[in-house]
């Protein structure tokens, strides 16, 4: 082995390669590892499933472009909305994700559907500037924020947007977020308008205390999205990716274990030296 190759094959790089293999192989050759549906995802699903056709739903997005689970959830959620004929208004607080979500809607061919008409059954507002300030305004004065949709069509030309004055006109608020604290602070909803939350796995643990007081149901990132696809009976990318996630977590577990053993051995050696 040449010196150059030796330098290249550091422990860190070997782990990166192992991670890469664990992601690529199950994506190309799905292993079908079992996925059990958690109670929380079931509860989340039931909230949407229990809404009668024509119910009004507000979808608020506040997550990063790299949040794979939230993107997968976005695809599944819109399929669910269409299947149950729910009236939906959606928006996002990030410019890049708003564009990415629009692209997902393009891919699904949602804009020209006959059975789920744009402007009547659903509206995509796209990027809404102002962050937390805009969320507060949206909560209390819907019309002041929903002035135009993603394409710049004025709200007056979109019949669905005329039906709302504030959050109380919605039957359900769905939040998909990274920084859940904005919504925990500002979206104090009523029992008639519950808020459910799809939270990025990144912050899943710290968001737990807000369930069920603030968010009446919660779903956990990519894992939750895979469980959701099982409940929806429409296999998608989340199920395909769950094998990769499981394998990478296994690699991570064994890496951590190896690091602990290594650290223990080093300490033992140091103690022996000191005694000697």
């Amino acid at each position, binding site marked *: 082995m040449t010196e150059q190759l030796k330098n290249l094959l550091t422990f860190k*790089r070997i782990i990166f390669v192992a991670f890469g293999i664990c992601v690529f192989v199950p994506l190309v050759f799905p292993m079908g590892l079992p996925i059990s549906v958690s109670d929380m995802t079931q509860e989340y699903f039931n909230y949407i499933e229990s809404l009668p056709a024509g119910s009004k739903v507000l979808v608020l997005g506040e997550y990063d472009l790299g949040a794979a689970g939230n*993107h997968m959830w976005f695809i599944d959620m819109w399929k669910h909305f269409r299947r149950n004929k729910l009236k939906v208004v959606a928006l996002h607080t990030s410019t890049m994700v708003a564009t990415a979500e629009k692209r997902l809607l393009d891919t699904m061919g949602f804009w020209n559907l006959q059975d789920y008409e744009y402007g009547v059954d659903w509206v995509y507002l796209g*990027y809404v500037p102002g962050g937390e300030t805009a969320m507060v305004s949206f909560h209390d004065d819907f019309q002041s924020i929903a002035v135009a949709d993603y394409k710049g069509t004025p709200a007056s030309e979109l019949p669905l947007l005329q039906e709302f004055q504030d959050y109380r006109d919605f039957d359900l608020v769905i939040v998909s977020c990274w920084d859940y604290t904005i919504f925990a602070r500002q979206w104090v909803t009523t029992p008639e308008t519950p808020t459910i939350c799809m939270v990025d*796995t*990144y912050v899943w643990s710290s968001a737990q205390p807000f369930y069920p007081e603030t968010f009446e149901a919660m779903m956990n990132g990519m*894992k939750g999205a895979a469980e959701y696809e099982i409940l929806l009976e429409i296999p998608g990318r989340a199920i395909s990716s769950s094998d990769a*996630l499981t394998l990478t*977590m296994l690699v991570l577990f064994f890496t951590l274990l190896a690091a602990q053993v290594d650290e223990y051995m080093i300490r033992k050696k140091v103690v022996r030296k000191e005694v000697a």
Partner: protein
Amino acid sequence: MVSTDPGMWIAAFLIFGFFTILIKDNIWFQICQMTIVGAGVAHALVWAIDRTKSYVIEPIQGSNPDYLLLVFSAVGLLSLFRLSKQYGWVGRYFTGFSMGIGLGLTAGTNINSMIKGQIVATLKGLSATNTFELFNAVVVLVSVVFIGIYFLFTIKPEALGGSVGWAQRLGRLLLMVTMGSSVPPYIAGCIGYTMAPLVMIVYDFLML
């Protein structure tokens, strides 16, 4: 079969370029880095212009113009004074205004959701009828109390005898357990972020 969409080829070029940093810093990675920063700024600028049109210009030009929007837009424009060395201080009015709004929006609601809401949520579990849930609620309450004691830095353990020191040690242990339990979801989240571009490569670029 590989995608014929030129946009997807550019995306693949950028994704592979970003992953080359795992080997070492190189020109491909640097090109990708600069491209994505430039494209991100350009994209945000286009959106900003578009939203200014929707939220400011069109409402002022409408049949019932809201001239107050001009005042707030002027406050926003004050931030541009930062570009001047001589009049940079004017930009501070914008900063003060924004911070004032931010504080006003979050101060009251933070007390309600982050303090009152959390106390209620901690105690509410004690009314559970299910034995497991009740046990869970007791563990949560005990953890909150002991971790709270750990953060009472103003009291020296020696001053109040051994019991406070013992309680603080238990609080520290519980704090470490809590932090430890939040690490796996955090790492899973990181892996999810890494997986997003790879999923795109496999399904949208390679179309497997």
